[in-house]
C-alpha cells in the first residue's frame, strides 16, 4: 500500500445537528459558515501559505524534472538536476518570506523559470542548466533590471527586491 494511503474504519456514532432557529447565540455563530472555501483555507495563515506553497512548487518541479530533451519540439534541453535543485532552494527562501510564484515553467533555453506577475509588473528567476541564476524584473514602462544571483545579489535578498518591484 502506498505510504499516503491508510485504511480507516468507521466506528463513530452519527453526530447531532443543532437547530439554530431558537437561540440568539446560535443564530449569531451561524453567520460563520464554512470557513472560506478550501482554496482559501490553504492560504489562510502564514504556516499554511508556506506549507502548501512548497507542496505545490515541489509537485510542479517534480513534473518538470521528468521532461526530456526536445520537450517543446523546438530542441529545448530538459531541465538539469542542478537547475531543479537551485529552483527548489529559491522557492524555499521565497515561501518562508510568504512570496508565492505565479507560475513555474521549463525554460526553452534549458532550466527552470519562476514567474511573478502583478498587473503591469513582472519578474522571473531563471535557473539555468549550468547552475547560473538570474533575477529579471520589468514592467511596461521602464527598463529591465537584470541581477545575477550570487554576484549582484544574494539569495536572501531576492524577496526584498521582488517585493519592492512588484508592489
Amino acid at each position, binding site marked *: *500500500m502506498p505510504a499516503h494511503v*491508510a485504511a480507516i474504519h468507521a466506528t463513530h456514532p452519527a453526530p447531532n445537528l443543532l437547530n439554530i432557529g431558537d437561540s440568539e447565540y446560535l443564530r449569531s455563530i451561524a453567520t460563520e459558515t464554512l470557513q472560506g472555501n478550501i482554496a482559501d483555507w490553504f492560504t489562510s495563515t502564514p504556516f499554511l501559505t508556506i506549507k502548501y506553497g512548497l507542496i505545490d512548487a515541489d509537485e510542479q518541479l517534480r513534473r518538470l524534472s521528468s521532461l526530456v530533451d526536445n520537450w517543446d519540439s523546438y530542441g529545448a534541453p530538459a531541465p538539469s538536476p542542478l537547475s531543479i535543485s537551485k529552483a527548489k532552494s529559491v522557492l524555499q527562501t521565497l515561501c518562508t518570506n510568504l512570496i508565492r510564484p505565479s507560475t513555474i515553467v521549463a525554460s526553452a533555453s534549458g532550466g527552470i523559470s519562476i514567474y511573478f506577475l502583478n498587473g503591469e509588473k513582472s519578474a522571473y528567476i531563471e535557473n539555468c542548466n549550468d547552475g547560473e541564476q538570474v533575477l529579471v524584473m520589468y514592467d511596461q514602462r521602464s527598463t529591465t533590471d537584470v541581477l545575477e544571483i550570487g554576484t549582484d545579489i544574494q539569495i536572501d535578498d531576492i524577496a526584498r527586491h521582488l517585493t519592492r518591484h512588484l508592489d
Partner: protein
Amino acid sequence: MAWLQDRHYKKAPIREAIIQIQVQPEQGVEVAQLEALVANPSDYATRRPIFRNEVVGQFKDGKSTATAKQDRIGFRLIGAEGKHIAAFRPDGFSFSRLNPYENWTSLRSEARRIWEIYKVAIGPAKIVRVSLRYINQLDLPSNLRDFSDYIRTFPTISSDLPQQLSGFFMQVQIPQPDLQALLILNETLLPPTDPKVLSIVLDTDIVKIEDFASDEAAWTTLDALRIRKNLIFEGSITNNTRDLIS
C-alpha cells in the same frame, strides 16, 4: 481535567498559533492611511503587503473570458526571524507565532504589545470578534492500522465502500454554548514527504462573536478560549499520539 489544560509536550506539534481580533472602527480607515500611521515596531524589520486576489471566469456566447483583480487589503509585519507575523487590516488584527511555539504567556504578551500599536493607529474601535487558532501537524506512522488509534475526530466512510484513503479535507463546526463560542475544526491529510510518515493537519479555531465592552474583556475571553483549546486538542488525540509528541 486540570492536568489537561496546561500539558506541555516536548515535541509539541503546533506549527502556528494565531490570535485574531476583528474591529469596527468609529471612523473608516484606508489601508494606505494605516500603513502611514504605523512605524515598524522594534524587531519587526520586514513589512509586506497583503493582497486579495479575485479571478472571475465567464463563458458567454461560446467564448470564455477571465479577469483578474488584486486589492491591497492590509500589510504584515514580520519579526523574530520570521517567527512572529502581525497582520494589520482596517477591519482587524492578527498575530501569528510560527514553529517553534513557546508558550501562551509569551504569545499573549507579544500579541498584546503589537495590538497596542495597531489600536493607536486604528483609533477608537469596537472589538466585535475574537478567535484563537492553533494549527498542529501530527506526524503519524504511515503503517498505522486505524486513524482512531491516533485521532478521535476524523471522516467516517461507509463500510460498504473500500476503506482506503488517498486524501481528505474535513471541516466541522461545533458550538461551545458555555462560552457562547464556536469551534471550527479543520482536518486534512498532507501530501507525503516521507514514506514512513503520514502527516495530518489538525486546525482548531475557536471564535467568539460579541460586541466586547472593553479591550480587557476581549483579552480575558482569549484566555478562556485558550483553556478550551487545550481541552479540545487533548480531546482530539489518543495516548498513542501523546507518546509520539512527548
